[in-house]
């Protein structure tokens, strides 16, 4: 016992104190970070459950007078799903191809550096500005009306840089050895990218895309300027004003009745659930495609 103590000297008091102190800091930081998350979730669930029912999920606000109870967010859910889906369809291919260019072909060329710079700039664009741009360009200059599609265009401007950055990071993580192994088999570069690099980075890219979707699904300002607001169901994203869940929350919160406030909370709960559901789906896809899983 004493022999081991002599061979391995005891940890000094100073080190013990420092260790405890830093450990305490880490726990404190963790606690501080988790408080807003938990309280937001709890608040939304508590207030949202009051109106989170079947009527809410299947009815629009058409014909619902300001003070009426009832009504729902079906038109907003539909709008959000359509707008986000279109934005994803637009921005994921463009973003992914840009990331592939930057990682696999650009390699320090001036064009790649320029693109990289502008992607950084785009990441910092306030969402209102994206909305204003589409409003000015698509709606005022080109003369298309308010529509879900215009909103999707604004959202895709916000999504693209996020997709590029996350996909770029993931592609860079693919070891060069794998590319070389593929080249050494006489596989052309494009095929190596499609069959080796992309599948290896697949899980990470899906996660990145989901984060981009989650970020964009809650955007209000650009939709306000491009989709406008309606109380009716509009299934066609290319014609006429639509609704979106963030717009719905914004709209209902602005009304001075308890019934409307309740609907707003239920809308917020729905939005969170949709994003969570999408994340879950992405996880399942990623797990199903993951290399670690023995098939």
């Amino acid at each position, binding site marked *: 016992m004493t022999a081991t103590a002599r061979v391995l000297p005891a940890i000094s008091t100073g080190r013990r104190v420092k260790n405890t102190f830093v450990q305490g800091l880490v726990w404190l930081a963790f606690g501080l970070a988790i408080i807003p998350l938990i309280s937001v979730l709890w608040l939304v669930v508590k207030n949202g459950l009051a109106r989170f029912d079947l009527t809410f999920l299947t009815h629009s606000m058409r014909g619902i007078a300001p003070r009426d109870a009832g009504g729902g967010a079906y038109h907003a859910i539909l709008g959000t799903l359509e707008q986000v889906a279109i934005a994803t369809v637009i921005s994921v291919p463009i973003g992914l191809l840009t990331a592939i260019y930057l990682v696999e072909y650009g390699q320090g060329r001036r064009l790649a550096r320029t693109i990289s710079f502008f992607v950084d700039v785009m990441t910092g664009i306030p969402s209102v500005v994206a909305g204003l741009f589409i409003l000015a360009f698509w709606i005022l200059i080109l003369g298309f009306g308010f529509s879900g599609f215009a909103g999707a265009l604004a959202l895709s401007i916000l999504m693209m840089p996020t997709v590029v950055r996350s996909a770029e990071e993931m592609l860079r993580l693919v070891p060069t050895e794998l590319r070389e*192994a593929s080249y050494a*088999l006489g596989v052309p570069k494009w095929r190596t990218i499609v069959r080796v690099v992309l599948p290896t980075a697949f899980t990470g890219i899906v996660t990145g895309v989901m984060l981009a979707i989650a970020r964009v699904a809650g955007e209000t300002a650009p939709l306000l300027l491009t989709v406008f607001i309606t109380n009716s169901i509009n299934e066609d994203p290319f014609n006429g004003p639509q609704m979106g869940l963030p717009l719905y929350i914004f709209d209902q919160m602005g009304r001075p009745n308890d019934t409307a406030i309740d609907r707003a909370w239920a809308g917020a709960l729905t939005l969170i659930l949709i994003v969570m559901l999408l994340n879950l789906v992405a996880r399942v896809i990623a797990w199903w495609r993951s*290399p670690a899983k023995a098939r």
Partner: protein
Amino acid sequence: MAKQIEVADLDAYYGSHKAIEGISMTIEPRSVTAFIGPSGCGKSTFLRTLNRMHEVIPGARVTGKIRLEDQDLYGAGVDPVSVRRTVGMVFQRPNPFPTMSIFDNVAAGLRLNGRVRRSELEGVVEKSLRGANLWNEVKDRLSKPGAGLSGGQQQRLCIARAIAVSPAVLLMDEPCSALDPISTLAIEDLIAQLKNDFTIVIVTHNMQQAARVSDRTAFFNLAGPGKPGKLVEMDDTSKIFTTPSEKATEDYITGRFG
């Protein structure tokens, strides 16, 4: 199937840095040629010029001639992709494709090149895995991920993957340096078998290994600090390790430097 390689006055660069200079040699078919020399002397660079893998690195280029039988590898209109189909490569660290099963890893070369007939594929995979002495260990778990094998098995899997596209030449860049002695022995036995069908070039830091597996040995060295690597001498392995003609070679293999 196996082919002769003739190199004449080859220089290789990384950007403006000249890595190897003035290399000329003949590599005989159906034999094992070993490259030895101290670290950084350009053995691996030279090996990678033999299947045009060198130019994959941005800014890397080559001057001089390499002939595979009668064809100039660097001639105009020669596609590097088709060169690599004929001259296969095994790397220092085993690098099976992590997203693919054992079967898919071996089939990768054929499949990624677009030739897919399941029945044909099964035959090739079994033949290649047998050729790499791995068939008996993995035949019951071909659908399991290739990354789940041990290091030595992974390296043999990579060799199976390389021979599945039936190349004429097989380049090996220190294939055993990440492996334990038992796995090394397995790979060395394999090399001895493979030379019946392929031209094999192996880079190694292990001189006993060079002496054990190779028919001819080439010794590379730096011309001086900061200078490009050079071929010092190339001869039958037995001669290099007993009576080398150059003093530098003797110093290196007897351990007096490097």
